[in-house]
């Protein structure tokens, strides 16, 4: 820096000297002429030469010249006209000013650009005018130079200046060379310096977060640390102290606290994607059961139910496989496109989604909307035709006919794997499929929700709240199973017990279910099994009875445990249970301890506060009850979206087939073969854009919603916060 400053000052001096030299030279030209300044500019000068002739062209006697004083300087060319005018007005013609452009452009000290300056020489007489002129010069920021009177001194000055300039140039050269050397050296070590500075900055940022202890001699940092890693941390600290050669060791000590610890769930690259979709809803509360290990399978499965198509599933699977196999390639990892990164982060998710879609595609028997005949179809058209003597003429007159399963031999047993391929040829395809998918959605939904309630058991057990097992889990399960478990039973029963023989009188489950709630019965709707009505009455009564237990059980239990209003009888839970207990292992089916409101609330509260707490607990429980009971009904219906989306997907792919691809096979000539290529291109593009991307995203969204709302509100609290592991943050690197 010093070197640069020196160099700058040297340059400035050099410039000044040069300017002075020029001024003298040019001024010399004017004043060395024996004739006054009235003589016009010497010919051949390309410069703009302005002469002010106040005396109307009359030559000024040389005598007057000796009496006048000179001011010489340089002025910025843009200001020349203004300067002139001002001089003229201010001094009323008692001066003569000449302007000449400098022969070479020089650097402007202020702006650094190279400008051709204008040299001026003002001759005047009288002291006051001199002062005025100087003031004006100051205003205009001109560089003024002393103008020696006699010619001899002028020449002397010029030679002197020459010498000075020479010396200065040499010095300047040396300075420049030296500066270049210094810069070179610095450039070599600059990267290391930069890294060191960044490291120091990061370290100081972290140290700022620590606090001083009592003696002000050392820093204390309060951290959260997983209990499992405690010994590792101690080892690391010991090693660090040893390596830095300090005399005092750093050590770590457990400290009791009433704060709720952060949640740490360890994931590997496979499980991270699934954990992130659970965390997007809410990070698990401390030591709560983690739904992510189950979501690894149930989420792709629910997606696949809505997406089920072998062909589309295969495409999705291959795309994800490519991403997974090349996941270490830097080209894939360093993409900047956000959408691509989202897909890449979820590559394992998409892999599983594709795999399950292939499976459900086989069950739905859909491959790009076409059915595959893996096993021979269960329905025999020939038998039906022979039985009803469908001759060619008969067929010609009847555009559509139905196969009757009552005729022996027409239906030969259920298709062993999936939906029978004949249904894809049938016109009443949707009649059968709708019934099947609706029941499937309801069954799977109730199973999913039941599983959610069961997961709540893990929470109750882990947090030592066994009373909740009896007072919450049991009523919840009874409510769910008595009503909706019974519905599942009815569905399965009807599938097994009723066949084509009694298809005319087959009861409607829906009507039965509604009648069950209303305690009415419908004469046309036959019972499914003898004794159905009393059984249903019992079940409804059971379900209704479980509601008040759910509503009042836990609050009353807590109230009784707290012994009413006496303060002394309060069993204070040691706050240590809320400490750094073993954090949740995300890999195993959760054992969790929840440091909930109960522990914190039951510690040392005044009786008034307890009363309020009881009201709060009661209200909380009421909300939970209402939410659960109403939720059971609405969430069951919500699972019907599985049916709706799979239907939409099937219809869309069928439309693409019939309206796009099939037209490519119409022409059977060679031209038809050529036409097939653009048709297939259109089919492929539409398949990827509409069916894979749009339907995929839609099914993904709905599966996510089913998990987040219908499944997780049976047991999940999700009010925790994540552990931010100690790391030097990247934004301190700048």
């Amino acid at each position, binding site marked *: 820096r010093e070197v640069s400053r020196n160099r700058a000052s040297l340059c400035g001096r050099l410039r000044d000297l040069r300017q002075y030299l020029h001024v003298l030279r040019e001024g010399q030209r004017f004043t060395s002429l024996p004739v006054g300044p009235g003589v016009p500019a010497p010919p051949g000068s390309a410069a703009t030469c302005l002469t002010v002739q106040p005396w109307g062209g009359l030559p000024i006697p040389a005598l007057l010249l000796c009496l006048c004083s000179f001011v010489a300087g340089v002025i910025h060319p843009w200001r020349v006209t203004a300067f002139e005018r001002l001089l003229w007005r201010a001094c009323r013609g008692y001066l003569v000013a000449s302007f000449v452009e400098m022969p070479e452009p020089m650097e402007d000290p202020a702006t650094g650009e190279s400008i051709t300056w204008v040299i001026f020489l003002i001759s005047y007489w009288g002291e006051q005018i001199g002062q005025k002129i100087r003031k004006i010069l100051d205003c205009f920021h001109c560089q003024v130079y002393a103008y020696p009177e006699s010619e001899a001194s002028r020449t002397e000055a010029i030679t002197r200046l020459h010498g000075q300039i020479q010396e200065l140039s040499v010095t300047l050269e040396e300075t420049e060379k030296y500066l270049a050397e210094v810069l070179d050296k610095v450039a070599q070590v600059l990267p290391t310096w930069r890294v060191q500075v960044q490291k120091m900055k990061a370290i100081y940022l972290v140290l700022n977060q620590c606090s001083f202890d009592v003696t002000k001699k050392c820093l204390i940092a309060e951290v959260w640390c997983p209990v499992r890693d405690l010994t590792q941390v101690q080892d690391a600290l010991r090693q660090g102290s040893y390596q830095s050669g300090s005399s005092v060791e750093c050590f770590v000590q457990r400290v009791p606290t009433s704060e709720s610890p952060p949640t740490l769930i360890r994931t590997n690259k496979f499980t991270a994607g699934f954990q992130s979709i659970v965390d997007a809803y809410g990070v698990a509360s401390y030591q709560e059961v983690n739904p992510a290990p189950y979501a690894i399978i149930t989420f792709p*499965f629910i997606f696949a139910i809505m997406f089920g198509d072998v062909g589309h599933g295969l495409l999705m699977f291959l795309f994800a496989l490519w991403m997974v196999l090349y996941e270490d390639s830097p080209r894939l990892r360093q993409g900047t496109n956000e959408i691509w990164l989202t897909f890449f982060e979820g590559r394992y998710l998409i892999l599983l989604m594709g795999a399950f879609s292939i499976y459900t595609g086989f069950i739905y028997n859909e491959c790009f909307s076409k059915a595959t005949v893996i096993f021979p179809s269960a329905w025999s058209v020939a038998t039906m*035709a022979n039985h009803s003597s469908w001759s060619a003429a008969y067929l010609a007159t009847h555009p*559509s006919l139905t196969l009757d399963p009552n005729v022996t031999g027409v239906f030969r047993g259920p298709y062993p794997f999936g939906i029978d391929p004949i249904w894809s040829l049938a016109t009443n395809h949707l009649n059968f499929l709708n019934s099947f998918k609706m029941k499937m959605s309801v069954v799977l939904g109730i199973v999913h929700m039941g599983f959610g309630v069961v997961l709540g058991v893990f929470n109750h057990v882990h947090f030592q709240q066994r009373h909740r097992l009896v007072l919450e889990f049991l009523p919840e399960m009874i409510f769910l199973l008595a009503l909706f478990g019974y519905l599942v039973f009815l569905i399965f029963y009807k599938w097994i017990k009723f066949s084509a023989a009694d298809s005319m009188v087959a009861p409607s489950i829906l009507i039965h279910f509604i009648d069950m709630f209303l305690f009415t019965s419908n004469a046309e709707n036959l019972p499914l099994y003898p004794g159905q009505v009393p059984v249903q009455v019992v079940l409804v009564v059971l379900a209704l009875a479980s509601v008040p237990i759910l509503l009042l059980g836990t609050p009353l239990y807590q109230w009784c445990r707290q012994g009413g209003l006496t303060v002394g009888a309060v069993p204070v839970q040691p706050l240590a249970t809320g400490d750094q207990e073993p954090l949740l292992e995300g890999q195993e089916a959760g054992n969790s301890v929840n440091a909930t409101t109960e522990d914190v609330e039951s510690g040392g509260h005044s009786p008034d506060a307890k009363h309020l707490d009881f009201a709060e607990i009661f209200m909380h429980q009421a909300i939970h009850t209402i939410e659960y009971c109403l939720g059971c009904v609405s969430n069951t219906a919500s699972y019907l979206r599985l049916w709706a989306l799979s239907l939409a997907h099937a219809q869309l792919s069928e439309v693409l087939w019939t309206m796009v691809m099939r037209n490519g096979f119409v022409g059977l000539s060679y031209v038809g073969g050529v036409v097939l290529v653009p048709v297939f291109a259109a089919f492929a593009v539409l398949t990827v854009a509409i069916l894979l991307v749009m339907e995929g995203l839609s099914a993904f969204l709905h599966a996510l919603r089913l998990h987040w709302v219908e499944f997780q509100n049976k047991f999940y609290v999700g009010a925790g916060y994540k552990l931010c592991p100690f790391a030097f943050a990247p934004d301190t690197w700048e």
Partner: protein
Amino acid sequence: AHSFALPLVLFSAFWGLVGIAAPWFVPKGPNRGVIITMLVTTAVCCYLFWLIAILAQANPLFGPQLKNETIWYVRFLWE
């Protein structure tokens, strides 16, 4: 003619193997829990889905309605 019992036994055995027997053979490691969870969940989900599909077709209450062209073609093709 398709039997109902044979596929039932076969698939129950298969998914039973996946969901009940295979978890015993998962090698010990940090991911053992996750893998067992995945196996069991997969077995339950896929078995249930297949079971629903076959049960829904076991006793059909009505048959497929086909166009006359389809009947004319399939009648001789699928026999």
